Structures are given as structure tokens and as C-alpha cells.
């Protein structure tokens, strides 16, 4: 039986505000437990929430970033459930009138196509605290530092058909929100967490199957693996004639499987009602226009501009743009005189490889944009072959100086002088009479192969510095002259 996978995603995005959504506590990650939780966050009697204007602005920025409709009058609601890391017994969220309404987000896929994903809504809410299970043997510890951190929950329609599409969406979303500056996008610290709704249906059918929800997956890789493992589980059940139970599941990365969350079995009955402690938020056109005017160039526009302005391929643009700092680095290299295409190749190739190995971000790159521009210029003017350039890059990485200094120190200059090259060719021909005879006796196709021997000898003698293109031309001419 062939099954079609249907998925919708809910992303909880922590907004990069300084203070919490309803209180003046700090949102900084990594503090000692409960030092960033005040009376409001703890749900002390009589405390009242006061909404953070930056959280509202960030939500509107996101809405405009995906071309969504902004709710002119949005309202907070209470979502009631009982859990120890939720001190008030309810989460302040938005259910009936979210701040961001329907929109469409176009996700660039690897083949260059755009996959339109319908965004159902995005709403503001407060994060819960954290339960810690591994410090105390008999009890669970509760840390409420995270309680009240502003979240934007972004909900899609069931528009995904594969794990690949889901991951592409999350990567594009990550890129968008970091460009907008509304989230640090740090998945390891929980700034972007994903719930995946999955169901299967017979290929060709229109009806939706029963879905399960996988909660709180916090890396692109785990999203992919969680989807594969859940799809396989559901297919096994359906293939053996069973039925899927609608439930919430957790992905266990160590076992690479999803399992049922038993504690949430009891009545998912949140009894939403309007939050009486907060008044409606009204957002007028003037406010929306002001936020729109403050938007930076977004990834989609930047990809298009890189293709037009720098004549990069869609593929290169799609690789350079997602990370804001990488795109900025590229533009800086070009501004400092580096040719665009080789600059892109170096950034996406050797530089990002070296950064990965050293576990560094491009902001901390030992090779500056200026240094790379210098290197690219020396390749373009023929001073360096690509082989020598790699050695210079190595020198740049180890802070040996500028490109020109490294060329001088390491003696890496490419030999392009016709007289010098001619001498090298003459030397190798004189030293290897047998190979010359063999070459002359061979036919056209074989000659090509045999000439490699002479090139190799010369490269060895010149320590790789002979200009390969000029050398080849000269060598063939001289060899053919021997007959």
C-alpha cells in the first residue's frame, strides 16, 4: 500500500526581547534557576500582566515579512491546563483573534523551485517554565526563568508532503526571523521549537487520516528523523489493518522513535476564554506602515538581487543568503574588489569548510573579507593558480599576513613568464629523451595522456608554480616541434 504523508507544523519562536512579554524580568538564557522570575511570572495573587510593546512590534514584523494580514484588533485568551511549570494554571495566549492572520510563505527548495506554504496564523503567547528531572531523585525541580518569555506560535496549513519540505520550511523560517531580528533562532537553547502534525492517507485519496502530534522537536536533523520514524510507525499500523490513535507523542532521539505522552491523555480541554486582565490590542495602518518601513531586505529579495546584481546562480544565491552574516561577508568581499563568482565559491567552499572544522561562525572568521578579496584578486590577475591559492588561503587562515605577503614569504608566485616556462620545458625534454620518443610515436589521443608525464615533472620541479594553462600550450608546441 502506498501512503501519502500530510503534515502541518507549529513553530514556537522565542522573541528576542530584553524583558518578558508581561513582566520586567530578563529573558536572558542560562541564569541560575528562578532568579529571572518575578511576582508576575510566578503568578502571585494580585499581579497583573502588562504587555511588552516590542513583542507586539516583532509579531507585526513577522506578519509583514510573510505578507500576512495583521489583525487590527487582537485579543489575549487564557488557555487552561494544569502543569507544575505553569504557575497560574493557565497560559496567556491568543485563540480567537490572533495578531497575525493568514499569509503565504514561499520556501526555496534545493532545486530552485519555490514551495508555497500557507500560514494559518501566528499568535503571541507566554512560554512556560522548565521542569528538571535529573537533579533530584524523589522530586522534579521547577525553574521559572523561562516562564513569561514571549513566544510567537506560527501555525501552517497541512501543506507538507515530505520531511524534506518540512526541513526546508524550517530553515527558511529560521533565516527569515533572524533577518527580521525578531529571534536569535538558537535552536539548541530552545529559541525555535517545532510541533509536527502527521497523518497518512491512501495515495490519491482526498480524505485526511487520523493525525498524531509530535511535540517539541528542537533541531532540523531531529525533525527529519522524527518524521521518518513516525511515518514508518503509522504505515506499519495501517498496513497491518490497525487504526491510528489521535495523541501527542514525543520524539526520543536516542532511540530514534516517537512514543506516547501519557500525562497528556487526560482531556486536552483548554477551556479558552478572553483574558480579563488584558485589554484588546489595536493596530492601525499608521503603525503597520511604520513597521513596514523598518523592515530590512529579506532573504527572498536578497536572493533575487544576488542573481541580478552579481550574476550568481540561483544555487549559489540560495546557499549564501540564508545566513545574514554570510551574505554580508560576501557583499563585503565584492565591495573590496573580489570578483563575485570566485568570491562565492571561496566562501561556500574552502572558507565554510575551514570554519566548520574549527567550529567558528563567519563573524569569527580568521580570514577577513578584506583578506579574501585580496586572495580572489590575485587569482583573477593570474598571479595564483587555484592550487597555489589554496596554500595562500592556508596562510591567511593562520594569520601569516596579507595575500601578497604570503605569496612573497612562501614564494608561491605562479610562473607565467614565457621565457622561464620555456626553459623549464626545454629542461624536461632534454632530460627525458625516451619519453619524448614514445610521445612522438603515439597517436593524437594517446599523446594527450603522455603529455601529463611532462607536466607532472615540471610542476614538481617548479613546486607547483608553473602557470598550468601557459605551460600546457608551450609544452605541446615544443614536443610537436621535436619531430
Amino acid at each position, binding site marked *: 500500500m502506498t501512503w501519502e504523508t500530510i503534515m502541518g507544523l507549529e513553530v514556537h519562536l522565542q522573541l528576542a526581547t530584553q524583558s518578558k512579554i508581561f513582566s520586567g524580568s530578563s529573558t536572558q538564557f542560562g541564569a541560575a534557576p*528562578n532568579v529571572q522570575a518575578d511576582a508576575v511570572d510566578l503568578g502571585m495573587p494580585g499581579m497583573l500582566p*502588562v504587555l*511588552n510593546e516590542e513583542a507586539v512590534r516583532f509579531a507585526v514584523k513577522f506578519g509583514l515579512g510573510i505578507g500576512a494580514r495583521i489583525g487590527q484588533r487582537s485579543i489575549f485568551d487564557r488557555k487552561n491546563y494544569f502543569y507544575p511549570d505553569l504557575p497560574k494554571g493557565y497560559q496567556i495566549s491568543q485563540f480567537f483573534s490572533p495578531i497575525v492572520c493568514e499569509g503565504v510563505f514561499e520556501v526555496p527548495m534545493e532545486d530552485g523551485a519555490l514551495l508555497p506554504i500557507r500560514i494559518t496564523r501566528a499568535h503571541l503567547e507566554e512560554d512556560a517554565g522548565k521542569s528538571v528531572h535529573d537533579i533530584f531523585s524523589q522530586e*522534579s525541580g521547577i525553574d521559572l526563568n523561562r516562564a513569561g518569555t514571549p513566544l510567537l506560535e506560527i501555525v501552517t496549513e497541512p501543506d507538507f508532503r515530505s520531511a524534506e519540505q518540512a526541513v526546508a520550511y524550517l530553515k527558511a523560517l529560521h533565516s527569515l526571523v533572524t533577518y527580521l531580528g525578531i529571534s536569535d533562532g538558537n535552536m539548541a537553547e530552545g529559541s525555535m521549537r517545532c510541533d509536527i502534525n502527521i497523518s497518512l492517507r491512501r495515495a490519491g485519496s482526498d480524505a485526511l487520516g487520523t493525525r498524531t502530534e509530535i511535540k517539541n522537536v528542537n533541531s532540523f536533523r531531529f525533525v527529519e528523523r522524527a518524521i521518518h520514524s513516525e511515518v514508518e510507525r503509522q504505515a506499519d499500523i495501517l498496513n497491518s489493518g490497525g487504526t491510528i490513535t489521535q495523541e501527542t507523542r514525543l520524539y526520543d532521539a536516542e532511540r530514534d522513535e516517537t512514543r506516547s505522552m501519557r500525562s497528556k491523555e487526560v482531556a486536552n480541554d483548554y477551556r479558552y476564554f478572553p483574558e480579563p486582565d488584558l485589554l484588546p490590542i*489595536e493596530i492601525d495602518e499608521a503603525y503597520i506602515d511604520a513597521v513596514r518601513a523598518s523592515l530590512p531586505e529579506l532573504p527572498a529579495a536578497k536572493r533575487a538581487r544576488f542573481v541580478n546584481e552579481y550574476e550568481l546562480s540561483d544555487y549559489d544565491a540560495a546557499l549564501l543568503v540564508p545566513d545574514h552574516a554570510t551574505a554580508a561577508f560576501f557583499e563585503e568581499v565584492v565591495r573590496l574588489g573580489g570578483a563575485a563568482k570566485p568570491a562565492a565559491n571561496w566562501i561556500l567552499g574552502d572558507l565554510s569548510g575551514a570554519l566548520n572544522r574549527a567550529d567558528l561562525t563567519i563573524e569569527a572568521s580568521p580570514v577577513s573579507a578584506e583578506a579574501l578579496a585580496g586572495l580572489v584578486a590575485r587569482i583573477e590577475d593570474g598571479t595564483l593558480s587555484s592550487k597555489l591559492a589554496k596554500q595562500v588561503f592556508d596562510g591567511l587562515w593562520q594569520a601569516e599576513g596579507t595575500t601578497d605577503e604570503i605569496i612573497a614569504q612562501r614564494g608561491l608566485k605562479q610562473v607565467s613568464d614565457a621565457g622561464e616556462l620555456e626553459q623549464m620545458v626545454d629542461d624536461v625534454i632534454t632530460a627525458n629523451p625516451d619519453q619524448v620518443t614514445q610521445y612522438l610515436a603515439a597517436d593524437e589521443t594517446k599523446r594527450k595522456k603522455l603529455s601529463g608525464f611532462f607536466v607532472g615533472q615540471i610542476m614538481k620541479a617548479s613546486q607547483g608554480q608553473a602557470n598550468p594553462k601557459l605551460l600546457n600550450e608551450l609544452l605541446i608546441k615544443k614536443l610537436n616541434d621535436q619531430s
Partner: protein
Amino acid sequence: MSISQDDVEKVALLARLSIAPSDLPEVTERFGRVLQLVNELNTIDTEGVAPMSNPHDMVQRLRPDVVTGASDREALMASAPAQDRGYFLVPKVID
């Protein structure tokens, strides 16, 4: 609108209220009377009236995004029944 004992038990569970089985019939009866009262509101024609989320005819004032200072953990946690190393302690909960 009447309500069943099962409904009352479910609502009590959600609200973490403990109701003795012997009290259930009476609670159910009184609960039903409250709902009847609320039900009378449903007889009013609200066609074309926007839902009111708040009785005040005002919009939300916003506060600037400023950290207003560290909280006094000791004082805030003083009323907690159990705590250790800065954590509130609760019965073991694991998903």
C-alpha cells in the same frame, strides 16, 4: 440546560477540585441551576453584535521593553512548600 454527574466530575478534575462522591448529586443540581441562569442570556438576540472581550472601552497600554531589575528569589520562594538549590520542588512529573 442540565448537566450530568460525569460532566461535573470532569470539570472538577480539570479544575483540580476534590468533590466527595456523597456531595456529587447536590453539586450537580446546583451547578445545573447556575447554568440555567447563564442560559437565559442565550435568549437575547446578539445578531450583528461584536463579541465583547472586555467590559472597558479601552485598548491595551503597552510597556517599553526594559528589564526592571533582578527579582528577590529568596523572598519570592519563601512561601513555597518545598525548594532546593534554587528550584521549586514538586512531585516527580515525567513525560
